[in-house]
């Protein structure tokens, strides 16, 4: 499912003294099947933009096209219910939204709500639990007895159980330990490959952007600052610094090394493997 924004503006509490514009004239495309990263500071409009992706917010002006469905300021909420099933959003700290008696019931809640039978929903829940690597013996436990990382996987499985075509992730690894972070990121990668999902990732972790995304959208103060491939976006360390954006570790290291020594990088490396490749080549040539 491809997504297009055309001249989208969004104003919170319009026509009140608290009026605040959060999005300014945003036009962009998220290609179908892409792994798109949205980066920008806290307050850059990432969360506002994200809530437009399944109609939780409607634009104040402009329009959004998701596959064939067009959302304008006057679209009725009733027309958006199918969209909510197609675009699944995993919000920040989604484990705060768990509520059922057992893990399995919690994951099955979404599909049941959208009209699946008890049996269908339970079967789907089992599949999804498996997909996010939750061991079978946890399924009948209370979700509140699990560890933080496990709870988060239950919440993600709950969204997956609605079988969305687009999975939107708002800082899915925040607050997890490094191993938990790596596991979760690998799960999304596998989902994209096996289930052909379009993935939209909001993150501050530039290493994840470098490693997983193939399309990057940069927001600043509610405006679209840039979009392109990770290689394009991270090619100019000085530009990123000017906009107070972090670099992937390998890019930052290469940039520091270039300033200090005889190393030259024709293409800024994004991961330690790419960096090691270029370093070995240059060391080899001279040797």
């Amino acid at each position, binding site marked *: 499912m491809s997504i297009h924004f055309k001249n989208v503006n969004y104003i919170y509490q319009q026509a009140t003294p608290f009026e605040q514009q959060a999005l300014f004239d945003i036009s962009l495309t998220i290609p179908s099947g892409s792994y798109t990263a949205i980066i920008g*500071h806290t307050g850059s409009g990432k969360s506002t933009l994200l809530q437009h992706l399944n109609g939780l917010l409607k634009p104040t002006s402009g329009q959004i096209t998701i596959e064939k469905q067009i959302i304008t300021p006057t679209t009725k909420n009733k027309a958006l219910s199918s969209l909510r099933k197609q675009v699944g959003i995993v919000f920040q700290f989604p484990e705060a939204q768990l509520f059922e008696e057992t893990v399995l019931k919690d994951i099955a809640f979404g599909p049941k709500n959208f009209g699946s039978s008890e049996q269908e929903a339970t079967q789907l829940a089992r599949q999804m639990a498996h997909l996010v690597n939750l061991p079978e013996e946890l399924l009948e436990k209370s979700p509140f007895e699990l560890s933080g990382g496990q709870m988060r996987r239950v919440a993600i499985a709950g969204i997956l159980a609605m079988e969305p075509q687009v999975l939107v992730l708002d800082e899915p690894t*925040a607050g997890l330990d*490094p191993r938990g972070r790596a596991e979760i990121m690998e799960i999304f990668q596998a989902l994209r490959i096996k289930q052909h999902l379009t993935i939209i990732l909001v993150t501050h972790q530039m290493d994840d952007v470098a490693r997983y995304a193939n399309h990057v959208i940069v927001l600043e103060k509610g405006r679209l600052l840039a979009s392109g491939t990770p290689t394009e976006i991270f090619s100019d360390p000085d530009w990123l610094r000017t906009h107070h954006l972090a670099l992937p570790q390998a890019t930052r*290291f290469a940039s520091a090394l270039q300033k200090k020594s005889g190393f030259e990088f024709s293409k800024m490396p994004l991961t*330690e493997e790419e960096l090691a490749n270029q*370093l070995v080549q240059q060391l080899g040539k001279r*040797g």
Partner: protein
Amino acid sequence: MEKIIEIADLTFHYPQQDSELLRQVNLTIHKGEWVALIGHNGSGKSTLARLIDGLLVPTTGTLKIGGTILSDASVWQIRKKIGMVFQNPDNQFVGANVEEDVAFGLENLAIPRAQMQVRVKEALQRVNMWEFREHEPARLSGGQKQRVALAGVIAMRPEIIILDEATSMLDPEGRKDVIKIIQELSQAGFTIISITHDINEASLAQRVVVLNDGQILQAATPQTVFARGEKLLAVGLDVPFSEKLKVALSRQGLHVPAGYLTEEGMIDWLCQSISKT
């Protein structure tokens, strides 16, 4: 150096559980020291912090804080020496504005108003949040909230500050701000225990204590602990970038130095290598 925390043969398990969460923990922390406590989820880090603050009682073994054995009789006196900041910035506010929130603990101690005002101002200035004193806590960013929580702790004038993953829910800028404040507090002489998964935060500590399945696996300088390389992931810490790069280089057949190198050290080594070739 003066000992401020002495933990001897400490074991802990919850009454309803058979397995021990902490086993035979021995650890001494000196006054003014900054210790980073690391370990994977469930390794017992937070349990240890709660035992130090007397929120939990050890099953066996003893804890001494400032030379006094922690007991039912001494816990209230000891708790005044310790301030704790927790992970979630949203769960720690009671006041309607920043200033009142920082004053809350002092009100509980019945500190006279004039003195309270001085201490609140001093604490908020210390975390660079004085200009936000009239703001509503809920409307602050995560990093600002954690700095206010720290001010609430500083106003109580503790000797020991325990940060239980206080930076883990923050964005990079908020995290940087809080780490900078921790550095300043350490320089000002506070004893700091920071429980963390963040390699940058751990690298600033004088000592890193690694907990694994309820036991201390290692207690050494950050450099020594970071030399574990890729094995750090198993004890709940990110692998430093310089170590990741070394692994990637040696996979390509390059000989790399054996010991731990900081990023600067790695850059120097690469510069030397290219000038030699």
